[in-house]
């Protein structure tokens, strides 16, 4: 899903390639891009499940307004992934209601 060549934009000015984890599994992305973009680039679309109806949510506004994209980042829930720059070794977890997804 990454755009490697674009007819107009010469360079997306990415940081270096780094590793992070999604629900414990290793993932790759670029330092400084939004966590949401790194997930999208890897084909991940569900960021969280709502607490009452357990319905999935993903990126909706990409500018920090709607809070649909929140996840648990480095143990902290409700972090807007579209506004959070990706960092080396970051732990990203799918959010279930207000808590990280239970393993298994």
């Amino acid at each position, binding site marked *: 899903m990454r755009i490697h*060549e674009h007819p*107009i934009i010469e360079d997306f000015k990415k940081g270096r390639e780094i590793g992070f984890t999604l629900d414990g599994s290793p993932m790759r992305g670029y330092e400084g891009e939004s966590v949401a973009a790194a997930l*999208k680039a890897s084909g991940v679309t569900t960021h969280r499940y709502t607490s009452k109806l357990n319905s*999935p*949510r993903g990126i909706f*506004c990409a500018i920090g307004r709607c809070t649909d994209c929140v996840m648990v980042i480095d143990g902290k829930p409700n972090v807007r992934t579209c506004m959070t720059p990706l960092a080396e070794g970051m732990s990203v977890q799918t959010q279930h209601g207000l808590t990280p997804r239970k393993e298994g």
Partner: protein
Amino acid sequence: MLRYEMIVIGAGPAGLSAATEAARSGMQVVVFDENARPGGQLFKQIHKFFGSREHQARTRGFRIGENLLKEAEEAGVKVVLNAAALGIYKNKEIAVSFGGATRGYRADCIVIATGASENMMSFKGWTLPGVMGAGAAQTLMNIQGVRPGGRILMVGSGNVGLVVSFQLLQAGCQVEAIVDAAPRVGGYGVHASKLSRTGVPFYMSHTVVEAKGSDRVESAVIAAVDERFRPVAGTEREIGADTVCIAVGLSPMGQLADNAGCEMSYLPAKGGYVPTVSEFGETSIPGIYCAGDAAGIEEASSAMIQGKICAAAACNSFGYINDEEFRERAEAYGLSLSKLRAGMFAPQNKGRTDISHTAEGYPLSGSLLQRGYISQDEIEAFPAARPGSGKGLRPVIECTQNIPCDPCQDACAQGCISVGGDITGLPTVDGDRKCTGCCMCVAACSGQAIFLVDEDCGNGSGLIGLPYEFLPLPEPGALGLALDRSGNALCGAEVVEVRKSAAMDRTAVLMMKVPAGMACAARFFRPADGRQACRGR
């Protein structure tokens, strides 16, 4: 409490222009923006802008953004990012939040340039991952370099929906369809035409009724609507799509003005609830100004001028420029603004459906409004769109609505093209001037509406020069299909030459050979080798 002479809220085109104007005149200025990057909407805009040279027409939005930032820096403007203004209180005190902490500031004057927010609509399944705002799609593809999806349904045919659809094609996505509940395409005809010719279908008087899928969008259901915009049962049609983009309008973000106590009113022509402002952008509270989309949905070009006008007014009231200097600036900016606020898409004409002819008296293309492309018999009504009778390449201009735009006129060194003094006029072609076939007009046209045509270049062939902004760029000798204005395959075609240069700023011109007689209808090239650069359906 830290005090500044001017505090600007929002580092988009309006805010940055206001700050630069004020700082150049000697004011001490700070700009706060809640975003991590400055520039507002501009860095997402990768197309060439409309307007005139004075409005930086034919320059791509992100380059205008780069220029603005450089100017602001040179003028000594301080831009503070990740800083959201929370509220404006008595005595022009402002609370600004940085991450967790909130700090108070005081200003002698304030410019509110917070821009707009995207309108949303709900329908069955609208919360599924894969349904997103058009702005979100733009941020992902043009800032982050990640495709928002593979197959897109665009909801909304205003300029935002049209421009984002084209950018999606450029990013390598497929746009399955554009739907709009209105019976007529809302944005510029030239934007619609450049999508139609690649094969993107328009469904007017249609809406999206459902996004289907278990954990993400797998398809979308659209349906026709009646005059009262209610879906008509039995007209549903399922479209394979993994992404539904919503582009159903923008609303001014005037909350800060509202909670500061400025007089507000609901003005449909401005797109919603806005502060009442003077001709210089001053709200009902002296010293608090509002500019750009926050004061009424318009364009970046007008937002920049509005920013300058209110900064000049503020400089004048604090003695940084005298009355005469202010009058001169206000007059020049006012004139520049009035040029943009003209034509059939001007704010005052918003929602009008009774415009049936251009200012020149030509009938508007109904096909363009209802289907997104001009039909062959309609195009012939426009003199500039008729290929000249002489030999050799001639410009054919398919720009048929009165929009504020004239780069085509500047681009031609031979003087073949003229728009006249009123930039909303339709371009005309002077058949007595010699066209050298240099392609500059094709590349300069912000609407990609100019083609070079030689109806008979010998050996039973015709030649067309067409603008092309997709990858991969076909090589000379590439064979494929010529598509007509609606995106239907017309005949075989061969690319005989690909023109590009720095001056053309990434708009290549494909010289495409087709059988004679097809040159007046062929408007796009689809390569035969399967590596389809862009695809509508």
